[in-house]
């Protein structure tokens, strides 16, 4: 069980992010919670593809004496994590532009006062 420390770090990140989304009132803090959950999911994808004592799967100047498919880390989870990071950036840009627009209309950032239709 002491070998699974990265998976416990992933669990801690997702739990902290979910607590911030559910129990905080400020809109900026809710946006930060979404980003923390995103970071936890990216860490989970990368630690699924680690091989013990492995090098990067790149053939340029590879040191000699490394056995070819057994001493390199897996490349496919890294490709999925790249896509996930870019999608996280796009989501954060849209969320922040929504928050700026809401603040201009309602003059407050408290999520309990943004419920009525303001004339």
């Amino acid at each position, binding site marked *: *069980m002491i*070998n*699974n*420390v*990265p*998976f*416990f770090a*992933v*669990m801690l990140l*997702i*739990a902290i992010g*979910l*607590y911030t989304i*559910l*129990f905080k009132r400020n809109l900026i803090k809710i946006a930060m919670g979404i980003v923390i959950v995103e970071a936890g999911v990216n860490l989970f994808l990368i*630690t*699924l*593809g*680690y*091989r*013990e004592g492995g090098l990067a*799967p*790149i*053939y*340029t100047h590879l040191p000699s004496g490394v056995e*070819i*498919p057994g001493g*390199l880390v*897996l*490349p*496919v989870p*890294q*490709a999925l994590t*790249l*896509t996930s990071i*870019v*999608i996280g*950036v*796009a*989501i954060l*840009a*849209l969320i922040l*532009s*929504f928050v*700026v*627009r809401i603040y201009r209309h309602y003059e407050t950032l408290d999520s309990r006062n943004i419920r009525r239709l303001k004339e």
Partner: protein
Amino acid sequence: MRKIATLVFLVFVAFLLYGAYEMRDFGRPPSDMDDYIIENSQKETGANNAVTAVVFDYRGYDTLGEATVLFTAVAGVMAMFRRRDDHA
């Protein structure tokens, strides 16, 4: 409302703890598809970098979808900040 949220949160944290405890071993993943990709990516694509070969050649359709997501995000930000006097 807060009681329901607390209950859902505690159930989900218990599920995460059980998952992290029963996960497979950390350093030994099953790797049949990745062994094929590492061995044959220089012959079939001619690139030294196996990660770039996976992103643009073996899974190029996912990269096209991700470029579409970036385009949609920029279009959404431009729609939010439009002023009424220009783009008439």
